[in-house]
């Protein structure tokens, strides 16, 4: 009897939050799925008589060359960002896991880049990659890497590079933070005994650090994929997806379809494609951490 009452108490606290989440997230998600099989647009929004069209929206998306470009951009943006932010984040994590006085405070300080409103970061990126007023062009000119200013955000071939660069700046501190916490969990005695056995620095890194870091590395890569793949704010402020869709990704494209072309069902279908891609990686991530749950 007493145990039953105890359990009941738990529900009093847990249920409101759970119900709230299900209603506020679950309902729109199902609504979005249904919407993606309909033909809701600006013309029939008022009347509400959008008919079911089955997979027609998806068919239209995948045969559209713009959408193929969007998919390509999304993957290039995600993989490109992951490679650089992970590599640099890992190097910084190795450095900041050393014991010295300023390690903690400065490592924390770098997190400001991660916490800044992305709208501001994007605006700053727009300035820094500007043609004549930009810091990047000025530095590259002064160092002699280029002879005339690069039209970073104006040219379709360089805009995505600039956006990836800014996104790496945002992502590096997060990668560093998670990897550092993974590194500090490796007991020092493992390294000590390896040193006794005569392992050099590279061997210690390859045979001890990397294998023991595997869970943290997997987690940071999967989380990085999830966070990067759904990007929206950065492109929306920095380039508006332009020039000529060259920085459009699934997130911005779904928005454009729904709110500039008012093709709500097409926007919903694009959202579903985004969701399915995230779900695949998300399930791997859940499997990874499910083992750590109690």
């Amino acid at each position, binding site marked *: 009897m007493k145990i039953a009452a105890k359990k009941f108490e738990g529900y009093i606290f847990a249920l409101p939050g759970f119900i709230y*989440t299900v209603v506020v997230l679950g309902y729109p998600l199902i609504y979005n799925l249904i919407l993606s099989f309909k033909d809701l647009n600006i013309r029939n929004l008022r009347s509400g008589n959008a008919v079911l069209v089955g997979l027609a929206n998806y068919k239209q998306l995948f045969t559209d060359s713009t959408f193929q470009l969007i998919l390509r951009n999304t993957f290039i943006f995600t993989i490109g960002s992951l490679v650089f932010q992970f590599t640099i984040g890992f190097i910084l994590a190795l450095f900041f896991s050393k014991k*010295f006085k300023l390690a903690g405070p400065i490592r*924390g*300080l770098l997190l400001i880049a991660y916490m*800044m409103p992305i709208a501001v970061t994007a605006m700053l990126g727009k300035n820094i990659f500007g043609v004549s007023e930009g810091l990047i062009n000025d530095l590259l000119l002064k160092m002699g890497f280029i002879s005339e200013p690069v039209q970073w955000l104006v040219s379709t071939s360089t805009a995505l590079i600039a956006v990836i660069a800014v996104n790496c700046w945002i992502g590096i501190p997060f990668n560093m933070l998670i990897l550092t916490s993974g590194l500090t969990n490796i007991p020092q005695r493992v390294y000590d005994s390896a040193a006794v056995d005569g392992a050099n620095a590279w061997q210690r890194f390859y045979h001890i650090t990397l294998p023991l870091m595997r869970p943290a590395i997997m987690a940071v890569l999967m989380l990085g994929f999830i966070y990067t793949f759904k990007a929206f704010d950065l492109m929306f402020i920095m380039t508006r997806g332009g020039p000529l869709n060259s920085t459009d990704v699934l997130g911005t494209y779904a928005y454009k379809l729904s709110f500039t072309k008012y093709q709500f069902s097409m926007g919903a279908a694009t959202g579903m494609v985004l969701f399915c891609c995230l779900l695949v990686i998300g399930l791997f991530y859940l499997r990874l951490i499910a083992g750590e749950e109690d």
Partner: protein
Amino acid sequence: MLEKIKFTLNSRRGRKNIIFSFLAMLIAVIFLFPIYWLLMMSFKPDIEIFAKVLTYYPHEFTIQPWLENLQNQEFLCSLRNSFMIATTSMLLSIIFGVPAAYGMGRYKVSGRKIILLTFLVTQMLPPSLMLTPMYLIFNNLGLLGTYLAPAIAISSGAVPFIVIILRPYFKSIPRSLDDAARIDGCNLFQSFFRIMIPAIKTGIIVVVVISFLSGWNDLAYSMTFNVKAEMRPLTANIYKFQSKYGTRWNAIMAYGAILVIPVILVFVFLQKYIVGGLTAGAVKE
């Protein structure tokens, strides 16, 4: 003192400490240069901004770009909207999130594992996916153009986040503490509010701050659900101000700097808690 410095310079550990700290500072300077750039641009007069040669610090210092924003009615209105949206979403997140974290942390609620995994999945849902369905639902409910619409949307992600971050805090409270409270005559809610919440003060501060910032930093929801520009927060009006000012980068940078101030303040005062909170949430649970 001098002895101490001498010792530091001579010992191997001391030298390592100095060299590494110097390197760390160098990394920080390079990495955070864009933020320095944001601030410096905001103190440059127009002439310097439009000059052919790029300056790396304001040769002529002015606070005009800041004043321009702070005297602008539209800017002040956006600032108020930012506060309203962030506060409303924070309140919703806390009201639903904190008790849920407690319930799931202290009691053997059945299906706890499934609920936790569901909450983790919600962290993967992008705003750009939720925009279309939520817009249409809020449209039917007549919520478009209110602070509540973006606040509900933002809190939908923050509630699960709070549960993920705060649950371990609640779990760490010794069982004897709530038993003692109950024996002393506290009822269920009294022990929650008077004993449990104060016991995990730092955790509460972290989630309050992070949920406020997630509302403060939001762009997608506030921009889409608040059709009228006068209801939009600073993040969503950046674009409008950008085109309005043209290439007036100093005014735009001052605008951005004001938007970053709360983030910097949080950092100065709460850095170590936030760092702990973020790591706890990402890798385990």
